[in-house]
């Protein structure tokens, strides 16, 4: 084998360079710097925990309640310090080791430990900064946004008003799903005959995607009552909100549907048409069912932003959770009731966001599996 080809003759040269390059990385500098950062971080967290904790106790917070967050922060900072020390020791051991392979393994461990310590330090510093932000200026931030007493006393009203948001959301979500599918089908009508409706649907999409949702809501909520039209001018503000949101989100969602419809491979259409299915039947039985499967994650994303945008209806006087909390805030010169609304929105949207992530993940896996 050896010497059978000319390239192999130079192997001694290549081998020599290769071995010369094969040094061991011990990450001495990085582990040292990490140690410095970790020590700094530990002191900062400890001092902050002590300060903010004792201030909280002065303000009447129970000792246990004040101790828990401070204690957790201090323990975390201690863990980081330990990590950094371990990294430095591994690095030193790597430098001392006579065995190249052992040294490399130690060096790798030191590297990983130091990165871990650094990222933990970063996170802790950000959290500490947040804690200070809440506590400075005689805890002005905490008092303004998190007045527990006010949150408790106003929660009932706010949650009740949140029902309006849920109603607006639920009704318009159903309307949007149907309405935007119609728009998407109009946008994908084929040929010369489909052109007028295609253009009209495009114009609608452009118009309502261009209009800020809040302006649409304002125009419809205050405009339609002035028109004296039968039925349309006598609706409640919740209905106007539903109409406005359906028009706005219908435009966005029709784009999602359209992307789904156009994403169905043309070979599927060819297969359906060649069996004698008409355009309508092909859409009904093949294209739309396949399209919907592909667009569930983006549809859910639209759904989440729709839920949040139900708060915009406050502008036309609908007593939704936001408007209710604004009234409470104005009466008390304190925004804690609005915080309740914020928390409500976050609580209902986070699980959905996670679900979307999961669905996207599942699709990606299926794609990779080649199905």
């Amino acid at each position, binding site marked *: 084998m050896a010497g059978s080809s000319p390239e192999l003759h130079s192997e001694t040269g290549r081998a020599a360079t290769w071995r010369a390059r094969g040094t061991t990385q011990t990450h001495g500098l990085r582990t040292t710097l990490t140690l410095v950062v970790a020590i700094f971080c530990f002191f900062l967290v400890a001092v902050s925990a002590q300060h903010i904790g004792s201030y909280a106790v002065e303000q009447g917070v129970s000792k246990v309640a004040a101790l828990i967050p401070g204690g957790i922060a201090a323990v975390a900072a201690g863990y980081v310090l330990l990590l950094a020390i371990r990294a430095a020791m591994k690095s030193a051991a790597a430098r001392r080791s006579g065995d190249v392979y052992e040294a490399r393994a130690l060096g790798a461990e030191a590297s990983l430990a130091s990165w871990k310590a650094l990222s933990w330090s970063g996170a802790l510093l950000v959290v500490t900064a947040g804690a200070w932000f809440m506590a400075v200026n005689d805890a002005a931030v905490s008092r303004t946004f998190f007045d527990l007493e006010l949150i408790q006393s106003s929660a009932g009203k706010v949650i009740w008003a949140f029902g309006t948001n849920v109603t607006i959301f639920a009704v318009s979500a159903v309307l949007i799903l149907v309405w935007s599918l119609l728009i998407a089908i109009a946008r994908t009508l084929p040929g010369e005959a489909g052109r007028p409706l295609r253009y009209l649907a495009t114009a609608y999409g452009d118009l309502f995607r261009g209009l800020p949702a809040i302006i649409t809501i304002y125009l419809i909520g205050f405009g339609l009552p002035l028109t004296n039209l039968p039925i349309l001018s006598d609706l409640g503000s919740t209905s106007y909100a539903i109409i406005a949101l359906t028009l706005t989100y219908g435009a966005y969602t029709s784009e999602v549907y359209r992307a789904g419809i156009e994403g169905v491979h043309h070979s599927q259409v060819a*297969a359906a048409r060649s*069996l*004698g*299915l008409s355009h309508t039947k092909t859409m009904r039985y093949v294209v739309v069912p396949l399209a919907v499967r592909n667009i569930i994650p983006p549809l859910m994303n639209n759904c989440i932003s729709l839920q949040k945008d139900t708060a915009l209806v406050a502008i036309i006087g609908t007593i939704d959770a936001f408007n209710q909390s604004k009234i409470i805030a104005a009466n008390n010169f304190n925004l804690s009731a609005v915080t309740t609304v914020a928390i409500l929105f976050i609580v209902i949207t986070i699980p959905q966001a996670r679900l979307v992530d999961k669905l996207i993940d599942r699709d990606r896996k299926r794609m990779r599996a080649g199905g």
Partner: protein
Amino acid sequence: MSLLEINGVTKHYGVLKVISNLTLNVDEHEVVCLIGPSGCGKSTLLRCINRLEEISSGEIRIHGDRITGPGVDLDRLRRDIGIVFQGYNLFPHMTVLENTILAPTKVLGMGKREASEKAMAFLERIGLAHKANEYPDRMSGGQQQRVAIVRALMMDPMLLLLDEITSALDPELVSEVLDIVRDLAARGMTMILATHEMGFAREVANRICFLQAGQVYEQGPPAELFGNPKGERTQAFLRSLKKAGRI
């Protein structure tokens, strides 16, 4: 009168001429194999026959009735001309049974039970009855392609177009698909196959057409065309296939 008459058909995409003044007749119960190098227009020709592609000039007739030009009911036409694609194109959101009964129930208005019975009989014949409730992505390419053939047969086509139906299959799965085609030929189904399986073409076809630059360059019975090709291009094509071990 021939079942299918293709008279002077030309098809071009912009400046690219894929089919150029091609003429070909196919009789009832005849099996015609189209062979030729890639890009010679085999697939395009098949897709023009059921008007998935529009021809640029010329005419195509079925039983003497012109099916090109305006005013032809395409859905009606396609009921009677089946096509099977290289990539199977089964509907991934439907089970095997749903795939096969979709067109009979929705296009012909056949009852669901009747269509299912018919489909099960076909599936039985090709040994896939046990897969009736399986989704396509859980099956091998060979199985999918056999289902695709059944899906086309469910409409009782008078002409079946097979567009390189074994080209996407692993070699060991080719024979199970070809067995069905052999069986159909024996039952007198009129078929046009675009294929690269020369051995099979030789066995099953009544006539081989060698396409070259969008025209029928040479045609004849298999024994003649493979055994004693007249045209220079045909000889060169067959020589290169022999070299590659494909004949």
